[in-house]
């Protein structure tokens, strides 16, 4: 039983990263119509920024949670202004190729300087240790990652679905021309949206640094699964990508317990099934 709970926890942790990353992808896709293949590289940059902050600036984990998403978000906004904005109105393929190229360059640069092995990032003192829940031992840091990710996801959902700013965003996703004709600076909104999506990826990177170490290819490994999550959940819905992210993490964890051989493929098998039955994804709208 202990092993089952342990795998469930691992599933929830992975689910947290899936949710944060697929949420950002969904927001970016809605607004920019771009499948952001650079997402994994930006997630990795989030972890590296946290590493640099600590080792070069002595800035601790808590500040990194705030600063790394901002720095990577600004980097993303520069990418959007200088490159992505010119793809508006073109086929998805162009955005995919450009962001994939950006991902390869960013990862290549980091690999050149840091190799492929992991750099250590230790758990902050306040979150060290664990608690015995009776049925299992819970490392505090892992519990923190799950809860904090959930809070961030729900806050993002609230921002988009329940606020005036979110109404601008949803409306501009539907009809950017008209929203702009109402007096809203849509190009600036698009840039900020990309910054937000990228910031969420960087935040996930910081959260993962103490668990998975800091590696140039940490995002490349993860992003493939995240794209499967996005396909399963559908691009259309914010809540859909959050729920699918956590659910698939848990399903993966359960598979590791009951049939470990399939744990690396279960998400892709599900993706195939969903694509066959409902090509727009579980919560997606038809394009």
């Amino acid at each position, binding site marked *: 039983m202990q092993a089952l709970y342990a795998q469930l926890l691992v599933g929830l942790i992975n689910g947290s990263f899936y949710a944060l990353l697929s949420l950002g992808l969904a927001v970016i896709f809605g607004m920019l119509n771009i499948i952001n293949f650079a997402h994994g590289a930006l997630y990795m940059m989030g972890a590296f920024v946290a590493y640099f902050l600590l080792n070069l600036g002595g800035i601790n984990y808590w500040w990194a949670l705030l600063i790394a998403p901002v720095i990577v978000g600004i980097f993303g906004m520069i990418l959007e202004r200088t490159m992505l904005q010119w793809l508006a109105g073109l086929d998805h393929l162009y955005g995919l190729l450009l962001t994939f190229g950006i991902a390869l360059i960013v990862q290549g640069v980091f690999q050149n300087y840091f190799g492929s092995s992991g750099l250590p990032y230790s758990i902050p003192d306040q979150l060290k240790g664990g608690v015995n829940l009776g049925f299992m031992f819970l490392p505090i840091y892992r519990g923190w990652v799950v809860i904090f990710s959930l809070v961030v996801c729900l806050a993002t959902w609230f921002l988009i679905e329940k606020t005036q700013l979110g*109404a601008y965003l*949803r*409306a501009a996703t539907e009809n950017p021309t*008209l929203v*702009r*004709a*109402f*007096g*809203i600076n849509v190009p600036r909104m698009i840039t900020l949206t990309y910054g937000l999506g990228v910031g969420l990826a960087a935040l996930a990177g910081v959260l993962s640094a103490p668990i998975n170490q800091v590696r140039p290819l940490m995002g490349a490994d993860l992003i493939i699964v995240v794209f499967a999550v996005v396909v399963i959940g559908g691009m259309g819905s914010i809540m859909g990508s959050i729920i699918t992210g956590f659910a698939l993490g848990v399903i993966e964890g359960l598979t590791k317990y009951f049939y470990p051989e399939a744990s690396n493929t279960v998400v892709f098998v599900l993706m195939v099934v969903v694509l066959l039955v409902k090509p727009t994804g579980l919560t997606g709208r038809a394009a």
Partner: protein
Amino acid sequence: MAEAKLAERPVAAAGAEVLTVGDLQAWYGESHILHGINFNVRAGEVVTLLGRNGAGKTTTLKSIMGVINKRSGSIRFDNKEIIRATSDRIARLGIAFCPEERGIFSSLDVRENLLLPPVVRPGGLPLDQIFTLFPNLKERLNSQGTKLSGGEQQMLAIARILRTGARFLMLDEPTEGLAPVIIQQIGHTIARLKSQGFTILLVEQNFRFASTVADRYYIVEHGKVIDGFANSELSANMDKLHTYLGV
């Protein structure tokens, strides 16, 4: 009593030109749609652009709004040249646009749709007055925007631009596809807005409807304004009009 309150609102000096369009040309990609549109609108007027399908009426409104990027000539609004301005800037100068397809957002409920356009200047209609004009909307604030009937969607599309403080409204075929009783209600609304000092540029196919609200008409054909006359000269121009519109 709603009117009484509004009467205190500053209205641009009656008769002053608020919009002057000169030699306006516009393109959709490579296709040249407008070939030199000339007309003007004075403060407090309802001016209607008439013409056959594809004559360039909608394109004229969209060019004024800055939605069509490739345009040349001159558009002066409130003595400012806006031919090169982006649409968000034009909106902030006080021009509001109600598109032909209405543009109600399906991912927003009625309240969010109504509150979406930002207030660009003081003097917009407060919500209670908007609900006096369009009582149906108040009942349906929590419905999804596109769940409304066609008539209600049209009312919502007009209502949401009245809040913004823009005093120059461009309505593109507001009666299209609506039942006569709703067309009548929209006619009353336009008359009421005019009496409150709004300036309205209307595009209409429904000439009978236009004649109940318009002060002046311009005829658009093949991307040019080919004629214009006041409502008082309407009966004298009836024959010509039938030829222009092919009705």
